[in-house]
């Protein structure tokens, strides 16, 4: 339905469940993709399964120098970066009263500051091209809050404010900046929950099930598409009705 032929996309956290699904969806729509993450082996595996138009650039998003270099390396591999998907994220959960400065800083660095630096790094090319798409993966907890996730929720809410500000600045240049906010999604992380925990979570989700990574990828694909050119500064909530905001 959406055609991204000739577009080049950089996806961070592509070795994860959601990142991998996003990469596959954009690639299936015709885009070239650069898969980024910290672990090279799973990225190579994914690139091999996608076939042509798939590149791998590893980067530790906690390291400012590596973050600065990533857009340049991706542009070298593909020719440009037309679509940036800020998907990489970490958690360092702890009760607020016990949370260390380091737990706070790590989550803010990787989840928020790296997204700022990556967006800044890809803007020049997008401005010249008069076309660009920046999509950040946030979370339902950025809107609702969640006990034990003060740092994570702050970073995710921060992405929303950052995206809206940037969206205002560059809308006249054909660049859109949006967020996709997943609820509970079946990934390696939620696989670890036991049946009781899962049952408790499901009582809060009107859809009665967890979401799938490809349902997040579909939202990203839409926001990355030419058809979504009039959507900017928005957050698309994909959470089975868990939070209707």
């Amino acid at each position, binding site marked *: 339905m959406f055609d991204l032929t000739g577009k080049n996309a950089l996806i961070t956290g592509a070795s994860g469940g959601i990142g991998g699904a996003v990469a596959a969806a954009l690639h299936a729509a015709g885009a070239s993709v650069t898969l980024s993450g910290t672990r090279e082996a799973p990225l190579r595996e994914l690139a091999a399964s996608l076939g042509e138009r798939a590149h791998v650039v590893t980067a530790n998003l906690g390291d400012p120098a590596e973050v600065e270099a990533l857009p340049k390396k991706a542009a070298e591999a593909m020719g440009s970066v037309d679509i940036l998907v800020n998907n990489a994220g970490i958690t360092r959960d702890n009760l607020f009263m016990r949370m260390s400065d380091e737990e706070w800083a790590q989550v803010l660095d990787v989840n928020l500051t790296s997204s700022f630096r990556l967006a800044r790094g890809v803007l020049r090319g997008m*401005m*010249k091209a008069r076309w660009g798409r920046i999509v950040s993966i946030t979370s339902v907890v950025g809107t609702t809050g969640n006990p034990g996730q003060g740092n994570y929720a702050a970073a995710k809410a921060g992405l929303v404010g950052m995206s809206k500000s940037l969206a205002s600045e560059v809308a006249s240049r054909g660049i859109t900046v949006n967020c996709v906010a997943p609820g509970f999604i079946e990934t390696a992380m939620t696989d670890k929950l036991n049946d009781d925990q899962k049952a408790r979570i499901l009582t809060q989700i009107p859809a009665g099930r967890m979401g799938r990574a490809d349902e997040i990828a579909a939202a990203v694909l839409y926001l990355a598409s030419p058809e979504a050119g009039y959507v900017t500064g928005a957050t698309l909530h994909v959470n089975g009705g868990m939070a209707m905001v």
Partner: protein
Amino acid sequence: MSDIADRVKKIVVEHLGVEEDKVTETASFIDDLGADSLDTVELVMAFEEEFGIEIPDDAAETIQTFGDAVKFIGQATAA
């Protein structure tokens, strides 16, 4: 120098869509030529590419007029 001025003028005219005779020595990009703040960033990017130079942010802030741009680029390319 006149070659630089011509090339700068061409970029300004193309980017801002203004008449060539409006681009005078003292013409301010923002006050006289209708640029917004993002236009000025884009102009600096275009100058960097046209002349193969780096214009640091603090220098870019001092480039307010067409004359400022020609003067700065003249110095940067002479160095």
